[in-house]
Structures are given as structure tokens and as C-alpha cells.
């Protein structure tokens, strides 16, 4: 059994009703700020849609991608979104399987981020296609030998599993909302009624829920590892310097956990502030999440050293050209900023306890997340300018890649899209799982059969 996590930090332990009302309260009022925020996101998405239709009509030439930089910011976005989405599996699956119960209040945030991110990963890959009107060919004429097919299947599988993993632990909470949110508009009440699947919290229902959750948190692990490994193989299977690397799979997965942890810390800060959840998302959670972030960053740093030092030591023909460009050439300012501000400096800073407080860790996490995106750009783009044969007989602007406004607007729209998904989800669902919170505090009243309700309990 888990011990109550946060009770020691509180002057007096709240009752179940207090916890429930605290967590439901933000759902009652649709504030002006929230409405404005949603409108803002929709405006960005509309701008993105306009830019995308421009791209559809004119062709991918409205980007700065050309024959020697055939993959650009869209593919970097795709890798970034896949990376961020892995946090759902880290917190909801790995930490749960390891009985790290401190992370329970964060699991829903992580799952919502995962859902938003994986949706935008799928969108980014379609945005990058020259002929999105022929997307059906992937199903009609798909060749299993192509890593794109593998990616197509694992992204879709992960999307479905992410939805299920978000939904399953939501069911008891939706049942609470169904009973408590009687003043909400009819559509919202209907939504709760439909989604609660007739949940009454019987022993049998808890047993089914626990069983299915255990299946899902185990099932998501191989899928999560596959999705990012296969994404790394889109690059690694090509015999090109900077891509053709055997450690690309673990290197990408380590990087994904860094990006996702940073995203969760940012979201934690925002929701704690906006929803006044200081009692539920505490300094201790920030402390622990930041330690997790440092752990994943140390792992990522280790892979970075491997990835750059080994070819850097032999400095072979194309490796040398590529690394000179990164270390000392055109890409050097970006490369060193990314590696220092996005990786090394955060590791050092987060060693200090004061830096693991909410506000400093928010700022650090923003840098880490920005660095994670820049890093994807640095993985995807520079390699393509170092083919085996020299690049000649092409217009001068083919020799460099600077994303155009169209590309930036569309990229911003995918960011807004992910944020909108998360915003809409927290608009109707509690951001901290009510029943898990109550359970961890040992004040659960909703469970008719207490013993079988603990999904963290080991079957054996």
C-alpha cells in the first residue's frame, strides 16, 4: 500500500468532499481569460490553415526545402511531437509499474500532453507530404519493407492506446462529474453521462478497471518504445553521415523523455496556478519531476557524447565535414546554444534545490523544451547538406535551409493545436485524478470495495 503523499505538508488533512470540490471547482466556471485563450489558439490554427492551403495550392516550394534539404522543419516538428508524446508512457506506465506513487497526480497531465502531441505528430507528417491527397496509397499500396509503414502503424496504435490510457482512469472521475456537475450545460452533462459508461463504483467495476489498466500500462510500453525507435530509423536506415547510427533508437528515446518531462513541468506550473491546485501539485512534485528531468538529461547527455565524440574522434571524410559545420561552421551558434542552454546548464542548475522550486524550474523547462525542438532541427537538417557527391549546378539558395514564414506559421499552428487539445480536455475533465488523489490520501469514500480498488497493488 502506498503512503499518503502530501498530508505531511498540509496543516490539516482535507476530507474527501474537500478534495473532490477542489479538483472539480475549475470546471464550473469558464473564465473570460480561458475563452480568450481558446479564441487565440483558434486564430493561430486558422492562420496555419490559410498557410497550409497556400502550400497545397502552390506546392511544397513555398517552404525553403529543396532537393538537398528535402526534409525540413515539418519533419523536425514530427520528431519533436513524437518525443513529447512519450511522456504519457513514462509517467503513466513506467513510474506506475515502479510504484512511484508520488507521480499519480501528474499522470493525467502527462496523458493529456501525450494525446495532444501524438495528434500533432500525425498532423505534421501529413503536412510534410507532397501529395496529401494520396494518403490512402499508404493503405492501398503499402509496402511493409518501408519504415514509413512501420511509423504509420505505430503512430496510429500509440494514438489509440493514448486515448484509452487517458480514458480508463477517467471513468470513475467522469462518474463523479456526472453526479456533481448538474449545473453544467446540457451537452456537458450528456457527455459525462455517456462517457461514464454507467459507472457506479461497484466491486466488479473496480476489478475490471484495474485489470484493464494493468493491461494498458504494460501494453503501452513496447508501443511507446517502438514509435520513437521507428521514428529514429527514418533517419538511421539511410547511409548518410550524422544519421546512419546504431544508437539512434535509444538516443531518440532518451531525448524524448527529456522533452516530455520538461513539457509536464511547464503544464504543472500553469495548471497549479490557474486551477489553484497548490495543495495537490506541491513543491515536492516539482522537486521530484525535476530530479526525473535531470536523470533523463544525464542519460541524454551520455548519448550525445557518444553520438558526437566517436565520429568526432576519427573525423572521417563526411563525418568531419558534417561535424565541422556543427561545431565551428554555420550551425555552430545554434548547436552550442542548444547543447549548453538546453542540456548542460539545466543539468547543473537543477542540482541546486532552490532551482527545483516551481518558478525556476518553469523557466529551466522552457529552455529545455526549446532546446529539444532546436535539437531536432539540428539532427534533421545539416546532415542533408553532406551527400557523397558535391552539390553543384543548383541555384545558390539550394545550398542553405532557412524556414519560410509559411513553415513557421504552420509549425505554430501545430503547437496551438496541441495546446487546444489539452485546453479543451482540462476544460471538461479534472486535471488531477480525483479518485487516485483520494486514494493516495487514504480518504476515499467512493469505493464500495476498498481492497480491490487499488490499481497500484500488485496482483501477485
Amino acid at each position, binding site marked *: 500500500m502506498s503512503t499518503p503523499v502530501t498530508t505531511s505538508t498540509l496543516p490539516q488533512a482535507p476530507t474527501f468532499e474537500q478534495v473532490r470540490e477542489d479538483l472539480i471547482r475549475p470546471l464550473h466556471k469558464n473564465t473570460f481569460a480561458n475563452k480568450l485563450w481558446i479564441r487565440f489558439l483558434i486564430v493561430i490554427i486558422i492562420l496555419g490553415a490559410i498557410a497550409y492551403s497556400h502550400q497545397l495550392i502552390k506546392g511544397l516550394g513555398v517552404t525553403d526545402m529543396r532537393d538537398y534539404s528535402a526534409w525540413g522543419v515539418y519533419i523536425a516538428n514530427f520528431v519533436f511531437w513524437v518525443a513529447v508524446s512519450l511522456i504519457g508512457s513514462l509517467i503513466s506506465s513506467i513510474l506506475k509499474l515502479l510504484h512511484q506513487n508520488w507521480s499519480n497526480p501528474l499522470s493525467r497531465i502527462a496523458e493529456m500532453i501525450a494525446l495532444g502531441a501524438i495528434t500533432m505528430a500525425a498532423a505534421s507528417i501529413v503536412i510534410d507530404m507532397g501529395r496529401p491527397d494520396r494518403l490512402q496509397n499508404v493503405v492501398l499500396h503499402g*509496402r511493409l519493407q518501408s519504415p514509413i509503414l512501420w511509423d504509420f502503424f505505430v503512430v496510429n496504435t500509440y494514438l489509440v492506446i493514448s486515448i484509452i490510457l487517458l480514458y480508463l482512469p477517467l471513468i470513475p472521475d467522469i462518474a463523479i462529474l456526472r453526479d456533481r456537475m448538474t449545473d453544467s450545460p446540457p451537452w456537458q452533462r450528456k457527455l459525462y453521462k455517456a462517457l461514464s459508461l454507467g459507472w457506479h463504483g461497484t466491486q466488479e467495476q473496480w476489478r475490471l478497471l484495474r485489470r484493464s489498466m494493468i493491461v494498458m500500462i504494460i501494453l503501452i510500453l513496447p508501443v511507446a518504445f517502438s514509435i520513437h525507435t521507428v521514428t529514429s530509423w527514418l533517419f538511421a536506415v539511410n547511409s*548518410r553521415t550524422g544519421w546512419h547510427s546504431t544508437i539512434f533508437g535509444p538516443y531518440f528515446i532518451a531525448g524524448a523523455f527529456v522533452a516530455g518531462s520538461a513539457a509536464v513541468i511547464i503544464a504543472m506550473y500553469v495548471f497549479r496556478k490557474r486551477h489553484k491546485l497548490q495543495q495537490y501539485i506541491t513543491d515536492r512534485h516539482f522537486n521530484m519531476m525535476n530530479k526525473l528531468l535531470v536523470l533523463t538529461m544525464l542519460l541524454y547527455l551520455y548519448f550525445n557524447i557518444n553520438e558526437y565524440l566517436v565520429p568526432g574522434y576519427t573525423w572521417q571524410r563526411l563525418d568531419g565535414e558534417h561535424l565541422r559545420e556543427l561545431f565551428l561552421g554555420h550551425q555552430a551558434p545554434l548547436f552550442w546554444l542548444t547543447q549548453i542552454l538546453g542540456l548542460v546548464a539545466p543539468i547543473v542548475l537543477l542540482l541546486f534545490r532552490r532551482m527545483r522550486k516551481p518558478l525556476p524550474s518553469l523557466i529551466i523547462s522552457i529552455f529545455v523544451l526549446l532546446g529539444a525542438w532546436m535539437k531536432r532541427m539540428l539532427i534533421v537538417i545539416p546532415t542533408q547538406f553532406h551527400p557523397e557527391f558535391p552539390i553543384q*549546378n543548383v541555384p545558390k539558395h539550394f545550398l542553405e535551409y532557412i524556414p519560410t514564414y509559411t513553415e513557421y506559421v504552420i509549425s505554430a499552428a501545430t503547437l496551438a493545436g496541441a495546446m487546444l487539445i489539452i485546453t479543451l480536455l482540462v476544460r471538461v475533465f479534472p486535471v488531477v485524478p480525483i479518485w487516485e488523489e483520494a486514494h493516495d490520501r487514504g480518504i476515499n469514500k467512493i469505493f464500495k470495495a476498498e481492497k480491490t480498488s487499488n490499481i497500484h497493488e500488485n496482483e501477485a
Partner: protein
Amino acid sequence: MKDQQHNPTNDSRRNFLKQAALLGAGVVAGAGVLTSCSNHLASSGEKTKLLTATGELVEVDPSQIKRVRKEKLTELQERGREGLTGHHWTWVIDLAKCKNARKCMDDCVGAHELKPYQSHINVLQMQDSKSGAPYYMPTPCFHCDNPPCTKVCPVNATFKRSDGIVLIDNLRCIGCRFCIAACPYSARRFQWFEPDYTEEQKNRVYDVELNVPQKKGTITKCLMSADRLRIGKLPYCVSACPNGVYWFGDKLEDTVTNGTTHETVKFSELIRDNAGYTYFEDLGTKPQVYYLPPKNRTSPYVPVDKFQEKYEEKRG
């Protein structure tokens, strides 16, 4: 289990299961509708004659026959996917002869309706060592026998034919550009914009072997002028060369013909006697375009920067 005897518990459990089952059934039904493409015929008592793989003529009930749905391809698409039987085309490029006349590039651009910088064959200026003088090297697609580009294609839009040519079907291509990433020889171009066509030109029937009309958002690449080979002629670039750089022919016949002099020689002897080689054998691609070393060449030296400038000038 004792508390479970009363009814409400069982009802809610039943509801939960029922709804879960409904959801599951919906998913299965949806998937079924999507994947069902087999034709079901009722048993009618009539028999249909059928030739088996072993050559026997048998009579079977029509309901036993599973119809294989044929892909809808145009005639030219279908023909383009079939290789010319009894051939394995090969190419020998004599680097000693190339003087950077660029007639090959011009004709390629003309035949395939490309922009100048999209030429399928690209004449590069190479310099292997600081002490050696630079030389000109035309680089078409190497039509590898183990092509990395066709391997990664998700939709079988680019494929290797039985006669050795690697082609692209632009009615199939989804424009993912994975093949550009995979090709170590930079042989592939992408149509980033809508090609400059009139409505009439745009609506012509698409020919895989010529890759015309070019289509926005798809790949274009060297096809060894498969349309010319079909009518027994040498590729556009090969016959355009004024300097006798290109030998084109058939590995199975072991002959190659010079595009300028029309002299025909034995392929194996030409390669053996002149120390022919291919590029990046170590990548395992088995390229089918051979090179003869750039010895005793007469072309003037032009620094690479000037070379690029000259090209820009020429494009205007």
C-alpha cells in the same frame, strides 16, 4: 463476492460490459467494412473451367474462385512497370572524354520537361586530390541492382524493373521524399512547384517511361530514357553527347554502343581493359553505371567557383 448478490450491482456491471461490447463490436464492424473487398458469389451449380499452376484443366464451382482485385493502372503505367524482356541495361561513362559540353543535360531537361537545375543527369566538377587536376563527371541515376530508394518507398511508387531500370510512377507517389534521403548518389529531384504547363499539356496521358507530364509534389529522376529504349533508340543524353563520353548497352548481350560514334564494343572488355569502376561499391548498392578513369584528358581547368558562376550565367 458476497456483497454482489443484490441486483443493482449486477445491472451496472452488465451495463458496463454491454457498452464496452458495443464499442468493441463497432470497431470490429468498421474494420470489416474497410477491409472487405472480396467478391462473394452464390453457388449456382454451373462449373467454370480453370487452368491450374501445374497445367491441368479443372472444372470448379464459381463460388470457389477468389477473384484477385487488379490494381487500376493506366495502360502506360502498366507497361512502364514491365521491363523490356531479355535486357539488363548498363552504362559506361568515359571520364577522359567529358569536356563539360552539357548537351546531355540540355536534352534531358528538354525531353523530360524540367527546369535547368532539375536535370536528371548532372555534370559535376570533381577533384580527387589536390595534386590531380579536376575533371568533369556526368552523374545520372546509377540504377542500382540493390537500390536503397525503392526499399524505403512506402507505396511502391519507385520500383526496379526486370531490365534493370529504376523508375518512378508519379500517379502513385505521395511525396514523402524518403527516397531522396536514402539515395547516396543525389540522383533524385522533387517537383516543389506546379510545372509550367498549359491546361492541355497538363492533361496529357502520363507516361511512366518518360515521366511526363511532370507532377507537382512528386519525385522526378533519371529513367535511362526507357521510352527510347522501347523503340530501340539510345537515351536522350547518350545520343546528344558530341564528345563520345557515353557507351550504352546491354549486360546480357555484353555489348555497349557509343552514343557519338555508334561504335559497338564488348562491355566486359571495355571495362576490363580500361579499369572501369563504379561508385561507392562499399554501400552495397550494386550500381549499374560504370566509369572509365579520367586519364589523358584535354579539357581546360576551371576552378569550382568559376564553374558554378558559368552555370548560373548559362541559366540566365
